[in-house]
């Protein structure tokens, strides 16, 4: 099993889904039927169940995880303050738990 043989994935604490029937990926429009696999797609869903943001990466390009975290922080900041969030905004001070290397 994937979580037993991959050192990285063995640390995963979130639930893993095998979308064998393609139901979820079809519903979300991220299945590439020609290869029977999904894009590297990410949906950020807010506490009310609304799609707050979505990213559809091509299969050959990995995601920017820092950007996903920034997006969630930015949406939360905007909800909490009512302010728009400009380009390249970063939570200040930066959340160092996101990138442990910053602590060095």
């Amino acid at each position: 099993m994937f979580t037993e043989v991959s050192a990285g994935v063995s640390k995963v604490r979130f639930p893993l889904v095998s979308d064998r029937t393609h139901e979820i990926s079809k519903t979300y429009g991220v299945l590439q039927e020609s290869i029977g696999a999904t894009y590297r797609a990410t949906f950020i869903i807010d506490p009310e169940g609304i799609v707050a943001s979505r990213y559809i990466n091509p299969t050959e390009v990995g995601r920017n995880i820092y950007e996903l975290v920034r997006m969630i922080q930015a949406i939360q900041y905007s909800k909490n303050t009512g302010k728009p969030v400009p380009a390249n905004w970063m939570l200040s001070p930066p959340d160092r738990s996101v990138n442990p290397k910053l602590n060095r």
Partner: protein
Amino acid sequence: MEKKIDGQSPNFPQTTDVAPLFTTDVFDNVEKRIKKLSLENLRGKWVVLFFYPSDFTFV
């Protein structure tokens, strides 16, 4: 006219749409067992739904 590209539903969810609900078996890697998970039960939490094409690839 209905337009269909690579089998995708023309109604797939856009930003600000309600995220389509689903219930599915999931592997809980902390408890090491298969459980049922329903998106509806995650109301009140921020959810990141993360698709990847294949195991043993980068994310």
